[in-house]
């Protein structure tokens, strides 16, 4: 079974993934993603009706940390790698306001 991924769908996936795509990238990815997804369809050959999904090989549950304060990063350490900052804040473009 072969899949087709059109440019519109690739651009939609790019948008969901928060990755801008050039026209050339969109075209290349359309083919490659279709190929890889077709390969994934191999799993449909298997009957898994009675199989429980397994998200983790080691099924540990309810790991709780002790409710004790411990040292964490200082604001200076946390901000040290910020590409743009304003005092003790990360700087971003305006998020709310005059857009429609």
């Amino acid at each position, binding site marked *: 079974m072969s899949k087709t991924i059109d440019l519109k769908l690739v651009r939609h*996936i790019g948008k*969901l993934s928060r990755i*801008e795509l050039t026209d050339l990238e969109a075209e290349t990815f359309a083919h*490659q993603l279709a190929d890889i997804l077709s*390969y*994934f369809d191999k799993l449909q*050959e298997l009957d898994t009706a009675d199989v429980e999904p397994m998200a983790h090989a080691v099924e*540990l549950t309810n790991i709780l940390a002790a409710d004790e304060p411990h040292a964490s990063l200082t604001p200076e350490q946390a901000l040290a790698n910020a590409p743009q900052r304003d005092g003790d804040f990360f700087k971003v473009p305006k998020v709310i306001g005059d857009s429609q």
Partner: protein
Amino acid sequence: MSNITDLSALELRDAIAGGEVSAVEATRAYLATIERTDPQVRAFNEVLAENALAQAQAVDAARTAGEKLGPLAGVPLAVKDNLATPYGKTTCSSKILAEFRAPYAATVVEKLHAAGAVILGKTNLDEFAMGSSTENSGFEATRNPWDLSRVPGGSSGGSAAAVAARQCAAALGSDTGGSIRQPAGFCGVVGFKPTYGRVSRYGLVAYGSSLDQIGPLTRDVPDAAMLTAAIAGHDPKDSTSLPADVPDYLSEVEHPIENLRVGLPREFYSDALDAEINAAIHAAAETYRNAGADIVEVSLPHSRIDRDEQGKLSSYAVACYYIVAMAEASSNLARYDGVHYGHRTDEAVDDIIQLYSRSRAEGFGPEVKRRIMLGTYTLSAGYYDAYYNKALKVRRLIKNDFDAAFQRCDVVLCPTAPTPAFAIGEKTGDPLTMYLADIYTISVNLAGLPALSLPAGLARDGLPVGMQLIGPALGESTILRAARMYETASGTTRLKPPMLSE
């Protein structure tokens, strides 16, 4: 004393403890080898010479003062550049983290410090550990020391090449689908992925969180035992780390296993397998038989390897693995937003969404983009059941196969990779072909099991062939002992690439 860089990590540790070699001498010897060979091999993203010499001096001072030395005191090691170090950069070989300096150390790095090890530098990888050749590095491709026109494997290709080229006594890598074992096989060294959760992942930059595991790359099996003992153990900072005691792997490794049962999975030995690799693995089985082991046939039907109509290798496990790994990657890599750390676009943007999308477009390479996009797609409404949920069900079938196999055998023996190291550029045009380089290693990560690759000799063109031993969960000791049995019987160990004899 023979050449310092030809000693194993264990021998060097003992020589330093015995005062035959100083830690500074050992560190200088490795730094000199890096300087001589790395312009060709390109294993290192960053060499931390000053830092390493300071660590070595501290070991020598402690020895002079009569202090008790750690189990790796003065041994120069390299660390894959997706492990956080509190000095130097931690880049994941990605442009998006090109200038990132971690504000903390990975637990394994702290454990190496506590053991007295010297950290020489950070090694190259496929960007965010996504790849099987180290060609996906955002910086440059590492070369295989056995043949500089070939890849070292990946994603821990820098660590594997550095160990093979005597640029460090041993190294750490990470393994999500074979990223320690496959490059170890390609470079003729030992690579060990412990059980999922055996080693803390704290400070390992996340790719596929249910699959990732840190482990050593070394020149022989006792070194793998020594390094694993140094980094294993429960860590409250990693809630998936296992609350189990760590055996003394190093003292156990020299004890052969009586009546060892070695399982050969019948599905792995079809005509899909390279003839020379097939011959090498069967010769290894013969070596075990001569050492008194029983060779039994086992079955791993959901990891079966065959060829499709176009002659391409094909496996349920590969499809299952890439669905799971890409889904987890798409979630883990959402953190690179151009705001908190990492690359941010210099261009003017209209809004924050464009800031994210453009920063990520500029910072990520093509393979990372493909995986994020495919993961996003397979997790999206309407496709979740067909892909992700289906893969999680197949994952259980794959694990059940191993559980059944380990009723019949102690270790599974199989190839590490379907071919020896391939040429640079050979597979970069077709991502799917590259994915198949992991066909023998990925089901181990899906099942969370420990597995080790060790050299099984040389094939055509003098390239190393790796063989893989897989064990049950927490069966590290069994694997190491079985691997040591082969290493001792075959004498295939500490292989030295010809470039070093010139």
